[in-house]
């Protein structure tokens, strides 16, 4: 028990926490992220409508403006869309899907990317050549184009979006991890582990992986934002999530059709939420990058 308290105190007294407190963009970034974590966990029970439940929709309430505009109603704070869905409720549910996809894609692609990066960096030679050439070829195409191509081959669906994003995203992790693995491999503790008779697999998992985790965390954080954006673009182009489970990108698309007719709110609010989430993630990601990379300090 006392050691736990001591460790806690050590954490709160650490340089990391001190720098965090002095860095306003890091604080704003985390505030935004924490806010959206609340939105996606508690939000659905706070909004008054389930946008997926068709029975609860009132077609009569289609295209109501936000509450502060003439014709707005207090029960639809941000207005409604063409089916009479409360836009606030749609955004809360849509944010859930967007964030879920962003996080899940980050986990899948960092798992695959880190594994391949470790293999390429540690074994080198043929493995390295094959893995990194695939990565190079893939990086010469815009990631959205590849995702678009994959989605048109797979069809709509959250699982398929996830697969596409993983196929697109592993490259960044693989390159980052390979680079760090190469520099860690030079250090004598890896040689020492080899000289101690440790099998390669164990050296990679026990000794190299923990030491390349830092850059991996930084890249992973920033990539969540990228994944959310790619998913939004895919859905906007109509090849992302299915129409019954709209993500933020699909909401923007739904509103885009009527945007020029003056019904701007249906697409501007979901778009603003995407921007805010990615902004928050990037602020925090930048802070982590500066903080965890000793060369930038």
């Amino acid at each position, binding site marked *: 028990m006392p050691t736990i308290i001591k460790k806690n105190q050590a954490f709160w007294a650490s340089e990391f926490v001190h720098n965090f407190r002095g860095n306003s963009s890091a604080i704003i970034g985390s505030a935004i992220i924490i806010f959206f974590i609340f939105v996606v966990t508690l939000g659905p029970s706070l909004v008054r409508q389930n946008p997926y439940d068709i029975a609860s929709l009132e077609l009569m309430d289609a295209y109501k403006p936000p509450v502060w505009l003439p014709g707005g109603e207090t029960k639809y704070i941000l207005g409604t869309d063409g089916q009479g869905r409360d836009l606030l409720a749609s955004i809360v549910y849509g944010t859930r899907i967007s964030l879920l996809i962003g996080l899940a894609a980050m986990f899948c692609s960092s798992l695959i990317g880190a594994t391949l990066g470790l293999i390429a960096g540690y074994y080198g030679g043929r493995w390295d050549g094959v893995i990194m050439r695939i990565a190079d070829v893939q990086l010469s195409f815009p990631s959205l184009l590849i995702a678009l191509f994959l989605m048109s081959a797979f069809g709509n669906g959250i699982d398929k979006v996830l697969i596409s994003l993983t196929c697109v995203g592993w490259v960044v992790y693989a390159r980052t991890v390979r680079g760090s693995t190469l520099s860690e491999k030079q250090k004598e503790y890896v040689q020492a*582990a080899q*000289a*101690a*008779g440790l099998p390669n697999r164990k050296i990679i998992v026990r000794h190299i992986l923990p*030491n390349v985790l830092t850059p991996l965390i930084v890249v992973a954080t920033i990539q969540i934002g990228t994944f959310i954006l790619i998913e939004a673009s895919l859905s906007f182009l109509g090849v992302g999530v299915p129409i019954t489970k709209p993500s933020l990108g699909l909401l923007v698309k739904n509103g885009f059709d009527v945007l020029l007719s003056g019904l701007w709110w249906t697409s501007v609010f979901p778009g603003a939420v995407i921007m805010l989430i990615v902004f928050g993630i990037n602020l925090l990601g930048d802070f982590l990058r500066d903080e965890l990379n000793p060369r930038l300090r």
Partner: protein
Amino acid sequence: MNNELVHIRGLKTYFHTFAGVIKAVDGVDFSLDQGEILGVVGESGCGKSVVGFSIMGLIDAPGRIESGEILFNGVNLPDLDERDMRKVRGKEITMIFQDPMTSLNPLYTIQAQMEEVMKLHSTMNAEERKKRCIELLDDVGISQPASRLKNYPHQFSGGMRQRVIIAIALASNPKLVIADEPTTALDVTIQSQILKLMKRLVREHRTAMMLITHDLAVVSEMTDKIIVMYCGRIVEKGTRDDIINRCRHPYTLGLLGSIPNLAARQKRLNQIPGMVPNIMQLPSGCAFAPRCDYVQEKCRSHRPELLEIEPGHATACYYPVERQL
């Protein structure tokens, strides 16, 4: 009783690079008895570390052991497959590296790193392992070892880390310890402490040691036998006394001459003129000929073989010098 531990015959380790073949070790023979301390001396790039890594079977591509035998307790190590070799590494033969700052993993406690070897090569349970860790740390002169087990490498100074590394190297009671420039990264006062410690420990455990260094002063304090390498070959080998007091090869003489002499006032340190030749374009005769003070016509065209000039003392020179320091 035959207590020969290591016998190396005709070892050749080449590196096949795009620019050509680098003959890092080109026909090296020596043997080492149990409990003996052998010094391997030479300038940077003479192949002395490669000998150590060849014994460990840790030569990475593009390097390869071309030919030769490394008999360890009668077993030819290059013939073993990776699986069997791993049982030798860390158990029978261990290594001590040059830089104590990077040869411990910064993320694990020293206990975890010491126990790693024990878990791998012994059947001790957690309690026995801990006891052994404390014992080992005590052995290498770390005070209050029990309280330091949970410390991380950054909480130790360079000299203490090297002590921990020595403790790890001795953890599995190896037959042979290969120390690759173990004191180069340490400051001079710590150096002699560490050397004395290593000497005491290998004597106590009857462990053989191969001490790879460029510092003749170090080996002259520590070793039983010395081999002097130049450009991938042995130029002189013999007992410590042979090399330090009765050396015959001009290169060894040059190395000894470049040790600063504190008793005599010197304006400049003696040095060996010239530079180590490019190992890919070695001279056709003796590799040392271009820098040798005693060079003669034959040296430039023919390469001298390592020949015994008195029992146990061999030199690769046509015109062995009489010592004249």
